[in-house]
């Protein structure tokens, strides 16, 4: 039987991205395995002869890095000003800890291990040293999530975190940075909910990390997070403070648990050692559950749509049609609409609904 411990070190990184990918279609085994085994869907698509489409534009990547660089420049001057303005930090706050890797724009941290060590040190110091004066802003706080979350262990990097003294306790708040423009009441609600969900993953991960350290006087992980966006067309940050992450964190907790169970279940079915398994082939030939949303993230969408077309499945007409038609094919639904005798109770019920909506105009 295969074991999760066989996964590579690389598989322990990028936890958040893989979790968010899985959440988009948790019913699909292919998607689940891709997230758990950290095999990119783009690579699986290529192996099946489909040209992957997704990937970030180099302009978008540069813009993201520039924005982050600007926020954290000069001891995080820009983001600090905004945080103080919205009350995340008190006026005249100070101290910036940059734990970003040098490859990601950081100044001094060269390796994941070094970042993990510094992050761990900070959490421990917050707990035990009464006189410890922590930095108020941390970029790239890196967490090693304990075994049992997706993989034997996984690392997760928090975009930005802030520390404040509240009622004699150190309180850490997490923030998610996104370069997309905040247009007030017109901001794309999908973008906001994605950012909020991601901040929820941070909050949950930080909480379980702190819990797992068994500290005597642990810092409080606030359920209040914040989202950092841009003022349209500029590099000025717009901060949405006081984002209640309670439910997003709960969603992350439940999601991780479910993903863990699924991962254990799927992987335990394999009789070989994972090192001997052709992972792409395994993923490519697992059960799928094609949906409209697949087009927003999965490079296998054309392939899964091809299968749906070949089977004449109702999903080719969209989610609503798929809900109404269930397992009845499009061709069969057309026949029912034309009045052929239904063969099953399901068909009979569907025919009643379809004919009721096929009125003649008056």
């Amino acid at each position: 039987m295969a074991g999760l411990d066989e996964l590579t070190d690389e598989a322990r990184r990028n936890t958040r991205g893989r979790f968010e990918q899985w959440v988009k279609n948790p019913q699909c085994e292919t998607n689940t395995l891709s997230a758990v085994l950290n095999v990119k869907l783009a690579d699986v698509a290529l192996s099946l002869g489909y040209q992957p489409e997704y990937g970030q534009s180099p302009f978008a990547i540069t813009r993201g890095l520039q924005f982050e660089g600007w926020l954290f420049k000069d001891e995080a001057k820009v983001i600090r000003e905004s945080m103080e303005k919205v009350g995340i930090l008190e006026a005249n706050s100070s101290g910036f800890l940059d734990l970003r890797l040098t490859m990601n724009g950081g100044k001094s941290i060269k390796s994941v291990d070094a970042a993990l060590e510094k992050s761990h040190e900070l959490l421990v110091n917050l707990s035990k040293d009464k006189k410890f004066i922590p930095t108020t802003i941390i970029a790239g706080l890196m967490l090693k999530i304990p075994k049992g979350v997706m993989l034997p262990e996984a690392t997760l990097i928090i975009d930005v975190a802030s520390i404040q003294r509240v009622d004699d306790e150190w309180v850490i708040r997490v923030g998610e940075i996104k370069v997309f423009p905040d247009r007030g009441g017109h901001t794309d609600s999908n973008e906001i909910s994605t950012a909020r969900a991601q901040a929820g993953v941070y909050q949950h991960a930080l909480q379980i990390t702190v819990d797992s350290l068994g500290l005597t006087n642990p810092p409080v992980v606030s359920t209040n997070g914040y989202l950092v966006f841009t003022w349209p067309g500029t590099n000025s940050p717009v901060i949405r403070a006081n984002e209640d992450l309670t439910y997003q964190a709960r969603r992350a907790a439940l999601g991780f648990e479910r993903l863990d169970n699924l991962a254990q279940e799927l992987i335990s079915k394999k009789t070989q050692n994972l090192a001997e398994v052709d992972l792409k082939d395994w993923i490519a030939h697992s059960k799928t559950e094609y949906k409209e949303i697949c087009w927003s993230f999965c490079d296998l969408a054309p392939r899964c749509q091809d299968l749906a077309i070949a089977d004449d499945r109702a999903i080719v007409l969209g989610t609503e049609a798929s809900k109404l038609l269930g397992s009845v094919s499009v061709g069969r639904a057309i026949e029912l609409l034309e009045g052929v005798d239904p063969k099953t109770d399901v068909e009979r019920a569907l025919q009643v609904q379809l004919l009721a909506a096929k009125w003649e105009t008056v």
Partner: protein
Amino acid sequence: MSTRDIVRQLEAAKISQPVPRYSTLHVRLVDNPFMVAFVRMAGESRPWGIVYGRLNDAAPRVLTAGDGRNREAVAEICEEFGVALCQYFRAEGHTFNPITKDNLDTKDLPQIWVPGERHVEMFHHLEYAYWRVRKGDDRTQPLTVLARLSGWIFRESGRTGQQQIIDAARALRDAYAFPADTLSLGNLTTAVAWFKEDGVLPEKRIRVRTAGEQRVSPTLDPGLDKDVLSPLVEQRADLLKAGKSLTLVEQKIHDALGRELMARWNSMVDAYRILANDTRAENIGVEKLVKSTMDKYVVEFQRVERGMLDSSGDPVFTPHPETDFHGSAAAAGYFRMQAADVAYTASLVHDDAELCAEALASGHAFMAEVTDVWNTGVGRVTIPNWQVKVPIGEISRLREGEDYSLVGNPKSKVSVREVEVVDEEHWSVHIEWESPKVRDVSGPISAKPLDSSWIGHRLIFVPCDTSALTAKQAQAVWDAKDGVGAWLTHGRAPVQVEENVIDDITQLQDN
């Protein structure tokens, strides 16, 4: 999406072609509209390139900046576009013949087409980019006017039934049912391909999908960015650093962006032609929607521009791009939107059998057989009354005190006085005619409401257009500033205003 929509989808799948959704077209197709599409650099919100022009122009104008992050270069193309747009809209200060309350003619509707929703949003980005001015700045210079016009276009795009900005992909989705999922139809090339590609399902699906690989959103394909544009932009930066000529590399960037812009342009033109070649007539209610669109344009945009031209530096109210910042403004805006919603169906339903059938199925309209006709007027006053028998449908929203119109007679108004259950299948409903009382109304017959020959006829009643009433509520919100609770509804907004910026909320409160 209703079951009716899914039935239409199945009908479309049967013939491998989109099928009409309604009996009439709900959009005014002006003869030679203004069309525009944008492209932008990933991560940026301002345009990197713009294609614009009139439908019948020999060729549209294609404008690009060498680098989409260069503010000056982008402002230059936006300014040229802005001037053309303002002239087309006959904006105050940009023409000798601006559209005003006095010369307003629905035949002159300025209409702008864009390929899809993301392009509509680009107008909001343009508003953000050029809206701010500092004290003493000339607020009538082209970029600032473009910002205000863009803001107007963006806000108007959200008003149900407006006829000024046409999202081409949406116009096709509104007019036809496709044998495809809605998500894919957000891409205009996909929607257009359903009309252009031959063949039958399932092969046609694959061909349509392949055609839809051409993006039409303002954000370019990451592959194109990576393989073509990013190397060119880097090359341009190197040349700039070395002080060498940029002409050649900028031409290459222009060509690459131009191809993308033209793909978006061509899709829009295709969409227009598909609708123009449709044999369905324009719904007679569209004229009313056009009139209301133009009225709003004059009141909410032109009036502000007139104020800008006339003002001697005094603040003139312009809406903030982000939000209302004011409870009363928000409430009034809400009522105006609600009025537009009501007016939309009420205007169109009288001339569209399919829409009427939808209203019946959803319980918003009802069918009734006239069983009695009598007069309750005294002396020379006529007040026609009818008793009608209404089948109890699965869904019914019929309530006492509500107003309806007889279908086909948008100006007619009857009021439901009493609803009584006759048996398990029928209600007996007493309705009173409010208008007309003595003139003919038309249906299966044409007669005065008091004519007993209506008895026995089955008629459809649709919701009355109560939008004028709702619109009045918008005004009432403002009028409440001296009433009880004004401290709550008209309190000053707690905004921080940058010292050197004339912030619009200040203007709003001062006016």
